């Protein structure tokens, strides 16, 4: 089974639907799961106890975990100096600590099987140092650093840990970004076009596939950066 966080919308939701379409067993995690049409459980990734409850239940039920996709994330377009303290905390708690908690608590379930793939999510904002995204970029830079170190810790267990760093994909996450701003970011990519959630799902499939077992601790940029 593949665990996908942020399953109720955006990239997480698109990834769930792609994997299910390929007959891959998926468990979606999200704060609100009422509208989800696939197997899901309510979980707030920014809460250690909430994630721990999920891990305990999976272990108790004897569920074999083959992959973890940490797609839950929030963004806030704002200058650092005009960002309220609670917004900064929410971004760090969800994007960085949420990813760390899920890795800490679900990876041991995968370590028992000595196989697995963990996919974290960063952003092109890290590579480009985008203006107006400093706190969001900081949280994702943390995810990239965590990914590289955690990949070494998990290599003993044949678990690969990688990071996908998309450019501006058309999801709810960037609804506050104007078309002009999006085009400006896209123009800085190696491949200067806006990609869709399908491109991200393609890469997720590749990273879950055993044929990518030589890849770990990598940050893969959708569109190139």
């Amino acid at each position, binding site marked *: 089974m593949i665990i996908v966080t942020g399953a109720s919308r955006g990239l997480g939701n698109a990834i769930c639907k792609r994997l299910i379409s390929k007959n891959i067993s998926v468990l979606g995690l999200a704060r609100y799961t009422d509208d989800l049409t696939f197997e899901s459980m309510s979980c707030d990734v920014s809460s250690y106890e909430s994630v721990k409850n999920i891990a*305990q239940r999976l272990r108790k039920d004897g569920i074999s975990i083959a992959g973890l996709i940490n797609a839950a994330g929030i963004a806030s377009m704002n200058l650092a100096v005009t960002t309220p303290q609670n917004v900064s905390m929410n971004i760090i708690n969800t994007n960085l600590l949420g990813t760390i908690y899920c890795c800490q608590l679900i990876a*041991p379930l995968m*370590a*028992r099987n000595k196989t697995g793939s963990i996919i974290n999510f960063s952003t092109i904002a890290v590579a480009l140092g985008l203006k107006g995204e400093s706190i969001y970029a900081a949280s994702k830079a943390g995810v990239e650093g965590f990914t590289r170190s955690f990949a070494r*810790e998990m290599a*003993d*267990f044949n678990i690969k840990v990688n990071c996908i760093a998309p450019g501006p994909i058309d999801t709810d996450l960037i609804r506050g970004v104007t078309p002009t701003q999006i085009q400006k970011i896209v123009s800085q990519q190696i491949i200067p076009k806006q990609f869709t959630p399908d491109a991200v799902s393609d890469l997720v499939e590749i990273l879950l596939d055993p044929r990518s077992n030589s890849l770990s601790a990598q940050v893969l940029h959708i569109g190139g950066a």
Partner: protein
Amino acid sequence: MISKEDARKSVFSAIHKYVKCDVTESTVLLGSDTGINSMQLVELCLELEDKSLVFGFEFDWTSDVAMSRSRSMFRTAGSLASEFIDQMETKK
């Protein structure tokens, strides 16, 4: 209910799989030639977690001093067994 002594023996039995010597209270786990590596440490934690569930509690191996040679529960077999038993007594 399992006795403290049986719990200690169970912890020592788990440790014995990873060290190259007989396990005693003073068997060093961290930072010695006969100690365990990071992979074995995680495997040992998973095994102790399994044992704890059988004994009716959940062993929490997280600690802010886990890698400290002077204060870690993992510094010796005895310290690990004592922590395991303490948690068993507290959480039951």
